[in-house]
């Protein structure tokens, strides 16, 4: 069963990827078409996930929103990992004072726990898709940076790197051919786990009305639109939320699978 779970994750990711790249295959209708006479319909065979306040089909909108939502998660993770790589490499490879300074700086960032750094960033630059994506990336960066730094410190002392130094390899060669690939191995797991987390965080921000705005067919935006109707028309928030959860569970399953695999070998 445990061996099977990563494959379930991969299957779910494939489904989401199809929905992101060719949404028309799964839901041929127009996600923005309104039918005012059919508003607030409960889930049925005609409307699998029901309809929203303007009579738009929620299943169609969820499928068409996959691309944008996954893109937000992937970009936020890319921003977080990118920043973390800079800090982690500076701290792990630089002279001691640089390591000291970077580590202290990261400690200061850690004092803004959870979503706090993201909220601070949004206060400065205003709500929106782009700012909330950057905000999530920024908020996750310190955690990644700490892991990357400790990984760099381990790899730096590895015998094969010493051997490369003895062989007279240049600094850049050692960085590109030895250090980065070995750090990247652990990064891969971080990234898969991080994408799910970023989607969850970005959608939380959208739910709070700080991210993507309606009427865009994006999961977070659909959530914040459905917020007002929460108690009477639950399907408006439930199904976009379900898809957020599916994508997060899928990436987590794949990430854990990779983690256990690398631990076994």
């Amino acid at each position, binding site marked *: 069963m445990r061996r099977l779970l990563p494959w379930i994750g991969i299957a779910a990711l494939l489904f989401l990827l199809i929905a992101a790249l060719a949404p028309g295959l799964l839901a041929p209708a127009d996600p923005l078409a309104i039918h005012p006479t059919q508003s607030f319909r409960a889930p049925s065979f005609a409307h699998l996930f029901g309809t929203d306040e303007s009579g738009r089909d929620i299943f169609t909108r969820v499928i068409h929103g996959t691309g944008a939502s996954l893109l937000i998660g992937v970009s936020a993770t890319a921003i977080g990992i990118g920043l973390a790589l800079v800090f982690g490499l500076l701290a792990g490879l630089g002279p001691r004072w640089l390591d000291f300074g970077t580590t202290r700086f990261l400690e200061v960032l850690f*004092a803004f726990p959870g979503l706090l750094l993201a909220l601070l960033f949004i206060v400065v630059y205003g709500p929106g898709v782009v700012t909330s994506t950057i905000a999530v990336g920024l908020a996750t960066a310190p955690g990644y940076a700490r892991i990357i730094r400790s990984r760099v410190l381990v790899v730096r002392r590895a015998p094969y790197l010493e051997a490369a130094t003895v062989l007279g390899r240049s600094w850049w060669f050692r960085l590109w051919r030895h250090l980065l690939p070995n750090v990247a191995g652990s990064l891969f797991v971080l990234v898969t786990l991080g994408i799910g987390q970023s989607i969850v965080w970005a959608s939380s921000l959208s739910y709070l009305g700080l991210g993507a705005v309606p009427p865009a067919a994006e999961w977070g935006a659909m959530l914040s639109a459905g917020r007002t109707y929460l108690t009477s028309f639950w399907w408006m928030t439930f199904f976009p939320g379900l898809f957020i959860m599916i994508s997060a569970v899928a990436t987590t399953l794949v990430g854990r699978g990779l983690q256990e695999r690398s631990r076994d070998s």
Partner: protein
Amino acid sequence: MALPVGALPGSGARRSWVPWALLRLGGVAFVLWAVATVTFFAIRLIPGDPAEAILGGPGSQASAAAFAQARVDYGLDQPLFVQYLQYLGRMLRGELGTSYALKQPVIAIVGENLGGTLLLAVVSLIVAAAIALALAAWSARGGRVASGVGWLLEVVAAAIPHFWLAISLILLFSTTFGWFPPVSVPGPLGLVLPVLTLALPLSGFLAQVMRESILDAMASPFVLAARARGEGSGGVFWRHALRHAAIPAIGLAGWAFGSLISGAVVVETIFARPGLGRSLLSAVQQRDVPLVLGVVLVVALGYMLVTTLTDVADRLVDPRLRAS
């Protein structure tokens, strides 16, 4: 069997506590200063005139004289460096300024809302720890079913957004069964759903960490030694393995604090519960800079407090740390 006496102040371990505590205190002071500085200059990056935010946001029709007055009132007419020094001075005196939107001292707003959030966070933490403990104990003894349940909860914990859990709990327990109110009413009944929303994901993480270290401890020499001394399996579990498992769980405290605060923003909004998280959110939405700053600083202070207490607890629980 009592705890080792060396753990308590007043014994021989006192000497090593003093320099450690001073170093810690210096670190806390540094981080707080840096947090205050970072937030001060970050806030200056906001495009637009702060006086406009004071007088009712963008597009306010206030007169030029009112703008000038607001600038003088809030000290915005001074050079940036002077404003920074004044800000640090006020910080030291515990003054956090006046909220733009609510026109009340920030410290009063924070004081009003702190209690609700603290209650929510502490109860959630206790519930989460209880669930995690039960799960960890079960999976340390039981076989595949227990570890399967633990694993599932852990994945779910990582993947479920707080708001979605809250919505699902509302749909299940208040819309369908009608057991608990969908909005947080005063009293213990209104606390149940918000606490569950915060505690369930947290317990997944805690249980995972505790399970691994309990299994680790059960296989270690000190457990073997305890068994050889003739201690029963219950005693071995509660006194030795659990204590070992507490170490990484305590290490998660800072992270758990952040997760609880972020969760509180969402949970307090959904359940319409007064608290620090909800004031932070409305301050962010209205760009009420002094209030955001105040809440951020209080949370940072709380975080530093939690991590410092964590270190103290670590040294109390793990005798190996005191030696070094």
